């Protein structure tokens, strides 16, 4: 494989990893209000994505892949809502440890990273095709 084609393949792996990150972020955002069903249950726990390097021996390149989607161990929030079926004796409900501002910033970061990878693809494709055009 040509080096520029390799860089396209690497950028594609980056785009894949970032889109999985966006999926997890959207899960967090959508479940920001998912409380437990019963007073002793637990609400939705925020998930975080970690990445890892993946060696592709056949092509001699390092791709990126999602390492693990694990739970965020931080404490749940509490809200006073005595009418909620999940409220405890004092009227407090445990709410997910999701901060929508943090999720928004994460989403922006993922988008920027995706864009950067797309720029790599556009640039390397342009370089390759301009080189081929030299034959004309």
């Amino acid at each position, binding site marked *: 494989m040509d080096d520029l*084609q390799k860089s396209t*393949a690497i950028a594609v792996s980056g785009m894949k990893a970032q889109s999985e990150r966006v999926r997890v972020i959207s899960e967090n955002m959508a479940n920001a209000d998912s409380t437990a069903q019963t007073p002793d249950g637990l609400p939705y726990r925020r998930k975080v994505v970690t990445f890892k390097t993946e060696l592709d021996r056949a092509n001699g390149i390092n791709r990126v892949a999602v390492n693990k989607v694990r739970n965020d161990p931080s404490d749940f929030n509490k809200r006073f809502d005595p009418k909620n079926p999940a409220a405890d004796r004092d009227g407090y409900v445990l709410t997910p440890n999701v901060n929508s501002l943090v999720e928004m910033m994460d989403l922006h970061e993922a988008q920027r990273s995706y864009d950067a990878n797309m720029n790599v693809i556009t640039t390397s494709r342009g370089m390759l095709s301009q080189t081929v055009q030299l034959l004309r």
Partner: protein
Amino acid sequence: MTTISNAINAYSALSRAITGEADSLTKESKGDSGALSQSVAPGKDFASVLQSAAKDSVSTLRNAETLSAAGIAGKADIREVVQAVTNAELTLQTVVNVRDKVISAYNDIIHLPV
């Protein structure tokens, strides 16, 4: 005279590069096309250059076709479809440009006033 021999050397180097590359590709795939490409490689003439270039590009194009069909069915990653189609497009561009170049050289030689 040196310019003509230079040009001939350049084209024979090109033919060697193309047939050599296509040969290694088919050997890697270990398909039943191995016997075909072996019968082509030793010739390394004008026809075999075009043939192996076409064979190489056909496998790239076929890969793109399979992936895009899977992509339409929602089974393949859309990014991989884009990558395969881009690669196929580039391969086709290269093959067409090289073919045009080689054919124009061939024509130039044929139309040489004797």
